[in-house]
């Protein structure tokens, strides 16, 4: 299979509400930064993949048309990939496949959401069957909280363990220049914060953000001109049936499948030892605990212990979300691509204040839909 590398990445200065730019202006900011990082211009880009969350998050339909105009993508192939919260990684996979297939030498992936414009939980509730459950939906939060409660009882994912995730990610976000939530908090603050959908409390929840991320992927040939590319060593995005018989809500089946496939591609047999840095997409703190297990960083039921051990702290042996993860900023459609961009920056040695020293192998995770879409990627400073 042809090698594919990340040549450049760019992020916006995320905010609760960016009133200085329109949606396309926001996305353009990330694109210009990625082009600058890769030392390229739009003339060098062969193909564009646009990613955003569920369309009702914004009031513009077919936004890729609007966006293509603003970045000079006219007369280039443009497709839009929409796959819920994980859409950024699904889009990156589409780009990887375009390069692998020889269709394009360099592909620009843009992922964004301007969540300040719409009614978030209401529009997420429209993911439910209109006949069957929509009237009871509490966005994705009611559902996520319900299965956290189950995992709490069955796997020991306690409120305290989740609170430690929040404290860790908030603290890490202080170092991230693109994050907009900059607040040091304690476990007690999280436990005492307002219950929204118990067990989910206010400080278990990431912010609602306006933001965009752009990543430029290229062939081995294109990477020759790049000083320090991050090589894609494995990438997968899997789906499970949303209301099939005996669907397991305790361990995510598509995450397990995606991780197994990607580890095989990347030659990883012991992720805890072989991976240097991890970025997971944690829409709520409870998911980070669940992903520790799904990604094989610890055994099933071992997440709370792993969290308490300090191993996933920025100075631990398997740092998770040194960027602050979603707690620093959560522009949903962009979030998965941000996770990929962050691990790319780590293995390129460009992660600034939260650089993990000597990081060579990075693991990114993404998820979307009704928790039924899960993606995993491994990047490395070495081609393999």
């Amino acid at each position, binding site marked *: 299979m042809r090698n594919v590398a990340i040549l450049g990445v760019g992020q916006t200065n995320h905010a609760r*509400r960016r*009133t*200085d*730019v*329109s*949606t*396309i*202006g926001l996305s*353009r900011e990330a694109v210009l930064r990625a082009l600058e990082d890769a030392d390229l211009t739009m003339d060098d880009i062969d193909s564009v993949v646009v990613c955003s969350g569920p369309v*009702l998050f*914004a*009031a513009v339909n077919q936004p890729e048309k609007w966006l293509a*105009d*603003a*970045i*000079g*993508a*006219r007369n280039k192939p443009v497709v839009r990939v929409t796959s819920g919260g994980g859409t950024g990684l699904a889009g990156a996979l589409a780009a990887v496949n375009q390069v692998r297939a020889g269709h394009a030498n360099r592909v620009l992936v843009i992922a964004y959401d*301007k969540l*300040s*414009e*719409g*009614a*978030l*939980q*209401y529009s997420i*509730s429209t993911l*439910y*069957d*209109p*006949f*069957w*459950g929509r*009237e*009871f939906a*509490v*966005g994705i*939060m*009611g*559902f*996520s*909280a*319900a*299965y956290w*409660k*189950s995992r709490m*009882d069955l796997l020991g994912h306690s409120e305290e363990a989740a609170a430690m995730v929040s404290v860790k990610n908030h603290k890490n976000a202080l170092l991230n220049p693109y994050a907009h939530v900059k607040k040091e908090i304690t476990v007690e603050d999280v436990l005492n914060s*307002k*219950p*929204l*959908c*118990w067990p*989910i409390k206010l400080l278990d929840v990431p912010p609602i953000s306006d933001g965009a991320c752009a990543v430029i992927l290229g062939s081995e040939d294109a990477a020759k001109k790049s000083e320090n590319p991050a090589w894609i060593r494995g990438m997968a995005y899997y789906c499970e*049936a949303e*209301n*099939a*018989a*005996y*669907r397991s*809500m305790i361990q995510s089946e598509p995450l397990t499948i995606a991780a197994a496939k990607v580890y095989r591609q990347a030659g990883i047999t012991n992720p805890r030892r072989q991976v240097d840095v991890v970025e997971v997409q944690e829409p709520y703190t409870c998911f980070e605990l669940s992903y520790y297990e799904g990604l094989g960083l610890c055994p099933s039921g071992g997440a709370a212990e792993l969290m308490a051990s300090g191993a996933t702290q920025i100075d631990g042996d398997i740092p998770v979300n040194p960027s602050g993860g979603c707690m620093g900023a959560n522009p949903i459609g962009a979030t998965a691509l941000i996770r990929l961009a962050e691990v790319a920056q780590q293995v390129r040695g460009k992660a600034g204040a939260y650089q993990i020293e000597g990081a060579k192998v990075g693991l990114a995770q993404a998820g979307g839909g009704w928790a039924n879409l899960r993606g995993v990627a491994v990047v490395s400073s070495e081609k393999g």
Partner: protein
Amino acid sequence: MNNTFTSGIGDDAVLEAQINLPYTLTTGKAAGTFLVALDQKIILGTTCEKCQKVIVPATDYCGACGGQNVGFLEMPHSGAITAVTKVDDKVFIFVHLDGADIDLLHIFHGDLSTAKVGARVTAKWPESVEVASRITSLDGFELAKDSAVGSSKPFTGTIEPISEMPYKLSLNYKHSYGPHYGRMFDELATNQRIIGSRCSACHNVLVPPREYCDICYAQTDLYKDVSDAGKLQAFSIINLEFVGQTRTPPYVYGEVVLDGSATRLIHNIGGFDITKAKEILTIGMQVKAVWRPKDQCKGTLDDIEYFQPVFE
């Protein structure tokens, strides 16, 4: 599968649903300035710093080359029609304003037969507007035979742009029940009974009933009654308030696996002191449907008021 309906929901029945979403759009600088300028009877364009094209309405970025647009141009109010159509009772035209490199879409005030391509037109301004700083602050265009060809000039005034604009989407849908949902909701309303469909291969009973099993991809072959009681698989206590919410917090969101089925049903858990939900509810406990009085059942999941814990 063969369907016989006991009441009103037939094969061609539809569920009429509406999604009403409020938005606060962010205009960006150029559009925000353009809209305020219209209130002052000024039509603003911009020039691309890269390809020098003159774009109307003013936009932040050039659609031709992706360049940044710089400065504002005050456009003449005159131009020529380049395209025309009639939708319902309104005539829409594309107008090539004198000096512009792109056509502007707006309403033509006049008869369709007079809106010839190439005809000269001029801006028509409203006497008053309901809401300021909208595209409707320009009423449209009307014929201006033999009008002189104008030209753009740099805009030297100052305009404080708007940055946000309220907006609403009201979406009406007609969802088809299809063969299985019609029967299922009929059973709810008529017999206060919940049905699923059985997979011909794995024999799991799937609720709501469906044509194919999601796991085996084998056809389902039988409707099966399932119990209106089952196991509480997950729950959360809702205090969150949000736009579009159909229940008043606090309440309990629950997912129930009904006895005799293999899938999850989303509903509310109630009938107990909600302030003690954390102590009363346990994962795996038995819950049972509390039905509304039969004459109030309408063939929706709301015919069940909630699921109530069963204490043994």
